[in-house]
């Protein structure tokens, strides 16, 4: 057994070095991994998915089910198809799914155990005992399943590119090139896409075509390519694979920018093309299918056209004396080529009757004295990790031959994947024994073998006719052939085994190790619908999507069910056509580009002052400030909370959403959007308000400032701002278009500072000496505008901590300056900066809720005891009607209460359940009665014990009662008392002081 080199114009004669499983091999520039390995007589390249059977190179293209390898030199890229990945100097490759080595793989024991691993074994095994799944089965399966190892951490620089075009031609084979030729120098904008790095398709992969218009195929390709390149309206994309055909003629294609080159990490290695086109021409050809026979997976078995392609496209003859096994007329070209190279096939096995076999084939075989078996089939092959002997059945006699390679052709399938993705309808064609496109759903045209036309002579008419909808010139193709023009095939899907044994298998899906026996078993068990059968057996569910085998399985199943293939139907073809890397899909949206970061004008100050940040929506907000290197979060929050209630603290509240509402009907609009009544509210005052959904549940809250009946400013939660604005817009545009109101997001127009604590007034007086901050001049929930240096500011008296507090609004340009000014004035009053965690603790002490913490989309204002916020006299507002629905007015709804531990040292944890039991049983057999949950839990430094806010069924009527709160990792529960949720200053003395 040995491979020989053949002259080939696509391969440069420059020798390069690659390593496979640690050994160095010589390859030529232009080789794929597969052609390089075949050149070096490497047949065994991987182990199979389930049974760990030795596998070799089966095909020469995208359809490869076996030869999947890991590229160590490219971030450990796994499951790369060796048959399309091109090599470069220094490429490091390893085989997959084997341990300790490719030749001696421990997992091959699965092959012996295979009776257990038959169809549906996942569903039948691993059912018990309890706990075994999590601790034994799953870790074991996860370790042994899959093929390659995941890639190492790397940063992809792949990009996305958008196209809008009139025509896309997919595939630059004979039909694609001829179609493109028609569009040369027309008004149509054309994108011409080829997955290989050369144009030509079948013309460069075989010698089926002798001449075109008197030129050799290579001359014709060069001439056509040059004409296309000179035509301004056609763009050629090479190394680009169309993976997806969506609705509205939207295509996705993946371009490999470094095909055959070492990746430059500073450049984009992949481009994902997103193409919108008016018309799509699919000319991506056909894929040869295999035939199932005993041990049809042994390394050395290869598709005949792939063998042929290695000779023509890569200049390597994998074996001088292979056996050819076919059921159709197309293998003639391989026979001819081998003979022209001085090679002599060991045998030619044709399942067709002698009379149906072309005379040319019979003549060659006779002249060259090649053993010829007509009306015969391969019974199976045998060998140790490779093909050694091949058994041929002819009638009742068996012939054993020695050869290391077997070329198989089971016929050709039009590559209908993209056509069916586009939702086109296919039809069974008895002449070619395959499905071919019938009725397109979109503006889709299929040409050549994709359309089921295997007749080269008819191609020219087909192209001219199907493209007559375009204003283009006619093309003429005068084609001379090396093969018979008429395609002839005999139906053959599986050959008969001599005897049955569990050791020898006849595979229907090489990638997922599905045998024809599995199909039979699945049908016996009742999975007779093709979609069910596919999932039960995992047939055609591998990364190759059964490209060489799915039609075979349909045919075999239809025979077993005694139905027509068209009745059995196909499984659904879904994108992508071939696997595409996640890096390509993500494009540039990775790491810091994944989601933009929003920073306030004070951000630099926060950084300098050791803030630890928290993400709130896209915003970066200080979570807490570290006073020293070793201070923990708990210590910092306790310190900040205590200091604020003793002196004063300041919070950067710039992230708070702010929406300006202006216009003739602003008052009416606000009355409809929010629960509160705004009509009687005086200008220049503010109010805490709530927004509900139509279902009566709280959506957002904030402070509403009324400047006049025609002008309001609403604040929202930091992350809720875009949604609130969008909701307001929606109602204005769709329900109340008669209202004259204009909305404007002004979140980023202001820096906002919340300063609060007992010493706040003194600090404010020092910062703004001209302003009267006395209680009479500046009462709680009022606001005023002032000139400040060269800008204007607005100060509002409001508080989220329960202490005396002010909110200052200033244009961001001046924000940092003022912030620093406040600190220099506040120094003598021990002013501290505080973060969101302290804010949350302080508001919990005061019993203020946080949207998304106390509320979860199932909470009404009544549940929170906020009845005072509901404008009951208003005729309507969003959600009002729902508040009187039977479900929302139930007495036993979950309601807001406070929790205080009876033993003051106990810690109430957020998210824990509230129950009636003081201790949970060791083994829980019956559900435990659940009363509610802890929505907020903090250690209050000001009360010196843990506090909680909770949502409890019928909570309003449970004040003073004793319940229990569960605790992490313990069965002993914490006894708590239900208390008023306002722990600090329930009379609001501090707020209004």
């Amino acid at each position, binding site marked *: 057994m040995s491979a020989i080199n053949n002259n080939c114009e696509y391969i440069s004669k420059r020798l390069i070095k690659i390593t496979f499983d640690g050994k160095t091999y010589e390859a030529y520039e232009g080789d794929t991994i597969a052609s390089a390995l075949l050149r070096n007589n490497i047949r065994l390249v991987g182990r199979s998915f389930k049974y760990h059977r030795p596998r070799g190179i089966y095909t020469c293209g995208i359809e490869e089910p076996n030869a999947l390898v890991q590229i160590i030199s490219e971030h450990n890229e796994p499951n790369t198809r060796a048959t399309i990945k091109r090599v470069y100097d220094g490429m490091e490759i390893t085989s997959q799914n084997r341990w300790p080595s490719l030749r001696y793989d421990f997992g091959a024991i699965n092959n012996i155990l295979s009776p257990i691993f038959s169809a549906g074994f996942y569903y039948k095994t691993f059912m018990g005992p309890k706990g075994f799944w999590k601790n034994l089965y799953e870790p074991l399966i996860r370790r042994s399943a899959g093929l390659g190892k995941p890639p190492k951490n790397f940063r992809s620089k792949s990009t996305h590119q958008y196209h809008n075009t009139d025509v896309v031609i997919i595939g630059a084979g004979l039909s694609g090139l001829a179609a493109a030729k028609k569009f040369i120098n027309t008004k149509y904008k054309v994108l011409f896409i080829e997955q290989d790095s050369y144009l030509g398709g079948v013309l460069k992969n075989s010698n089926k075509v002798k001449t075109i218009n008197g030129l050799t195929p290579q001359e014709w390709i060069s001439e056509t390519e040059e004409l296309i390149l000179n035509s301004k309206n056609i763009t050629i994309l090479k190394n680009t694979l169309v993976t997806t055909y*969506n*609705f*509205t003629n*939207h295509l996705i294609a993946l371009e490999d920018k470094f095909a055959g080159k070492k990746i430059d990490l500073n450049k984009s290695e992949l481009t994902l093309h*997103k193409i*919108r086109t008016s018309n799509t021409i699919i000319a991506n050809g056909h894929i040869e299918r295999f035939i199932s026979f005993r041990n049809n997976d042994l390394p050395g078995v290869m598709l005949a056209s792939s063998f042929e392609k290695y000779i023509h496209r890569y200049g390597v003859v994998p074996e001088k004396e292979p056996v050819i096994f076919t059921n159709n007329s197309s293998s003639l070209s391989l026979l001819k080529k081998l003979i022209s190279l001085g090679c002599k096939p060991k045998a030619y096995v044709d399942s067709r009757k002698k009379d149906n076999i072309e005379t040319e084939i019979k003549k060659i075989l006779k002249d060259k004295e090649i053993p010829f078996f007509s009306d015969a089939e391969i019974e199976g092959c045998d060998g140790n990790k490779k093909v050694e002997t091949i058994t041929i059945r002819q009638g009742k006699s068996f012939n054993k031959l020695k050869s290391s390679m077997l070329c198989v052709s089971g016929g050709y399938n039009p590559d209908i994947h993209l056509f*069916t993705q586009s*939702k*086109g*309808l*296919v*039809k*069974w064609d008895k002449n070619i024994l395959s*499905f071919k496109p*019938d*009725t397109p*759903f979109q503006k889709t045209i299929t040409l050549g073998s994709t359309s089921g036309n295997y007749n080269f002579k008819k191609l020219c008419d087909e192209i001219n006719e199907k493209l007559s909808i375009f204003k283009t010139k006619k093309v003429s193709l005068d084609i001379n052939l090396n093969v018979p023009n008429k395609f002839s095939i005999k139906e053959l899907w599986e050959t008969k085994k001599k005897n049955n044994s569990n050791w020898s298998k006849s595979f229907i899906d090489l990638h997922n190790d599905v045998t024809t026996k599995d199909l039979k078993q699945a049908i016996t068990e009742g999975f007779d619908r093709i*979609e069910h059968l596919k999932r039960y057996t995992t047939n055609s569910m591998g990364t190759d999507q059964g490209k060489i085998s799915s039609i075979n399985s349909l045919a075999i199943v239809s025979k077993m069910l005694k139905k027509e293939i*068209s*009745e059995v*139907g*196909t*499984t*659904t*073809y879904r994108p992508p056509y071939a696997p595409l890397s996640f890096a390509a899909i993500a494009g540039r949206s990775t790491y810091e580009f994944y989601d933009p970061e929003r920073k306030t004008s004070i951000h630099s100050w926060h950084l300098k002052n050791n803030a630890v940040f928290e993400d709130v929506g896209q915003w970066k907000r200080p979570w807490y400030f570290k006073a020293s290197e070793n201070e923990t979060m708990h210590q910092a929050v306790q310190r900040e909370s205590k200091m604020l209630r003793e002196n004063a603290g300041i919070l950067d509240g710039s992230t708070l959403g702010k929406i300006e509402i202006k216009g003739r009907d602003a008052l009416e609009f606000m009355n409809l959007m929010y629960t509160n009544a705004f009509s009687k509210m005086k200008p220049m005052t503010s109010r805490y308000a709530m927004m509900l959904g*139509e*279902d009566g549940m709280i959506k957002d809250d904030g402070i509403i400032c009324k400047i006049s009946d025609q002008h309001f400013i609403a604040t929202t939660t930091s992350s809720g701002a875009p949604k609130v604005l*969008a909701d307001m*817009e*929606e109602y204005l*545009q*769709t*329900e109340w*278009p008669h209202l004259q109101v204009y909305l404007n997001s002004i979140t980023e127009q202001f820096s906002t500072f919340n300063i609060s604590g007992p010493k706040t007034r003194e600090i404010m007086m020092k910062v703004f000496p001209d302003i009267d901050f006395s209680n009479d001049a500046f009462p709680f929930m009022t606001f005023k505008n002032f000139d400040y240096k060269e800008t204007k500011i607005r100060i509002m008296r409001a508080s989220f901590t329960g202490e005396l507090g002010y909110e200052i609004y200033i244009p961001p340009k001046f924000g940092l300056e003022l912030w620093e000014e406040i600190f220099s004035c506040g120094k003598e009053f021990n002013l501290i900066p505080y973060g969101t965690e302290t804010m949350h603790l302080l508001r919990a002490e005061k019993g203020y809720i946080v949207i998304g913490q106390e509320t979860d989309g199932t909470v009404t204002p009544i549940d929170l005891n906020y009845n005072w916020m509901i404008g009951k006299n208003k*005729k*309507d507002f969003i959600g*009002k*009607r*729902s508040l009187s*629905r*039977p479900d929302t007015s139930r007495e036993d709804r979950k309601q807001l209460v406070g929790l205080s531990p009876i033993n003051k040292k106990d810690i109430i944890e957020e998210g824990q359940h509230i129950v009636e039991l003081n201790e949970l049983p060791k083994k829980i057999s019956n559900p435990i009665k659940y009363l509610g949950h802890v929505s907020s839990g903090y250690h209050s430094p000001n009360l010196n014990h843990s506090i909680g806010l909770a949502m409890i069924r019928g909570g309003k009527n449970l004040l003073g009662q004793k319940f229990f709160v569960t605790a992490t990792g313990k069965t002993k529960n914490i006894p708590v008392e239900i208390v008023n949720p306002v722990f600090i200053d329930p009379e609001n003395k501090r707020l209004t002081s």
Partner: protein
Amino acid sequence: MILIKCPYCGERDQSEFSNGGEAHVIRPKNPESLSDKDWGEYVFYRNNPKGIFYERWVHSHGCKKWFNAVRNTSTDQILRVYKVNEKRPDLSDFKNTLKSPSGEPLVGSGNFAVKK
């Protein structure tokens, strides 16, 4: 990824738009006068047919305008777009345009990619 023609901006990618569910569900003028059942119907119940569907879209990453569209939900074909204040097109306008992908039946789902 389908193409949607915003009546204000023209054809744009679907990713620029957000779907707003069924169109022509009008908020009752006097919610208080409705029975719990009728109000519940308005708040919670929407149609979800296979085939012709009148629905709302907003050009959320564009002009932010709401508009209505008639879409065939089994093919994702948008048959008509019209502004909020424009008249609802008649169902009979679209009867003849109905086709389903891969020969699916007009009601129900399934895989029918093969012509018989």
